[in-house]
């Protein structure tokens, strides 16, 4: 386990910023305690100082997961956000997409969201903007990337993809073995 280098921190913040914008400050600078990011085996974890001190005394080979895993660095040093970060993205999300009950299951199985399944979408969503996907009952289901801007969403035909799937809570069941 080690702290992130400058370049790695920049990559993580840029990725997070695509979903929550300048609200990352609320993650970095919290009133209820000191939280930090640490890298363990190419995965980025978000944990409190208390937990960090506890985890520091665990040998590296035995340590599975300190804190919450936000994502991992791939072999080519790109940062990939994982579904376990959803709890921290959902309250601070800037652009949201609500999905109709009929196509919730489709999204949870890993498919993209089609126009026919789109319930609501935040105004002024740009194309390729990071969005958090909710059900109509405001339960966060996952996150993705908007394939079309809000304006284009209105004009496009019902079978067009409006949100590219990136992660959903169904992965907790599907990828049980690989999630940390």
């Amino acid at each position, binding site marked *: 386990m080690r702290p992130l280098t400058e370049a790695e921190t920049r990559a993580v913040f840029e990725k997070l910023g695509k979903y929550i914008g300048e609200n990352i400050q609320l993650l970095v600078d919290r009133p209820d305690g000191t939280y*930090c990011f*640490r890298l363990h085996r190419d995965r980025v974890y978000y944990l409190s100082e208390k937990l*960090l001190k506890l985890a520091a005394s665990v040998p590296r080979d035995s340590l599975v997961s300190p804190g919450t895993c936000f994502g991992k660095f791939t072999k080519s040093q790109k940062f990939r956000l994982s579904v376990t970060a959803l709890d921290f993205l959902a309250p601070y999300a800037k652009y949201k997409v609500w999905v109709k009950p009929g196509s919730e299951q489709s999204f949870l199985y890993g*498919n993209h969201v089609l126009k026919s399944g789109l319930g609501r979408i935040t105004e*002024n969503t*740009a194309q390729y903007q990071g969005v958090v996907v909710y059900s109509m009952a405001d339960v966060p289901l996952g996150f993705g990337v908007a394939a079309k801007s809000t*304006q284009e969403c209105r004009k496009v035909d019902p*079978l067009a993809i409006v949100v590219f799937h990136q992660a959903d809570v169904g992965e907790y069941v599907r990828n049980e073995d690989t999630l940390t």
Partner: protein
Amino acid sequence: MAAVRVEAVLAAAEEQEAEKRRSITVEKELELEFDLGNLLALDRNPPSAAPLRGAGPRREALLRALARDNTQLLVNRLWELPAERAGGAGGPLVARLPEPAFRLPREKPPPRPRPPTRWEQFARLKGIRRRKKTSLVWDEQAKEWRRRWGYRRAGGDPARAWLAEVPAGADPEEDQFARLRREKRERVARNELNRLRNLARAHRDGSAVPAAPLHPTGHQDREELRRVARVARVSTASLGRFQPRLPKEPAEPPSRSGGKKRRFEPLLGNLAAERSRQLELLRDIGSKKPVLDITRAVNKQLRQEEAEAAAAHKGKKQSQRGKRGRRQQRPGRSGKKSGARRQQQQKSAGG
């Protein structure tokens, strides 16, 4: 008494002031030669011989006056050059110097030529001259021009040679393929040894040959090339700090420890400092985003176009009532058949 002293003091002060504001014009018999690019002024006037002979204060005074006059002339010329203000309106006035005309001598002696290698000596002795080889060779089997060596060479792929004849006086039990491989290895090794020997000889005789060759030979491995590339990058005046990276070079510069262990921040270091650093980084990232949001502008434009289109369409509709309007609308609407088909597709995609 006091008045006389005061007058004397005033006179001395006036004299000092006059000395300071001496005239900037200098009289010389021969004009000086100037090379303003090198800030050089050549004075060919023969100095007066008498004061220079003996060492003493007169000599010093004369030399100082000479230096002062020549410098004054040089500065006069500099003031005549075209000048501009560096760094905007309030910056300092900077003169634009012309190209230097005077060639300055070398700082270090020129490099000695490399001593000839053993082969070069032999070739000179025998009178053997280099014959330029063509890059392509006609391959009779493949009936086309192939390169002399390398990928798809003339004479077939040596790795696929399936026949190795046993030469006349050789042991029939010997493995010919192994022999060929061994001989090739020996040839390569001998070639490499000779190359290094030549290099060592050149280095010993003191010519300017680098111990590790900086040009790519065919026999360097990846690590050596990487080392050589690093040396090349660092051999600039700023020690490689502003050198642009090659297309496939890694972005992060290697550490100052020269490729040994990476050093990270301590795990439980100063968390407050870490937090402040991260906040600064966030501010930096935030400030880099462009102020003009292109997508918003595009969306605004789209909305405008939509509104205009809707207004135009409404106007058209009202004028086109009747059979014509109805006939145009029908192909656009979804019929019963296509709608059912679409619903089926959706269900299969969702399930």
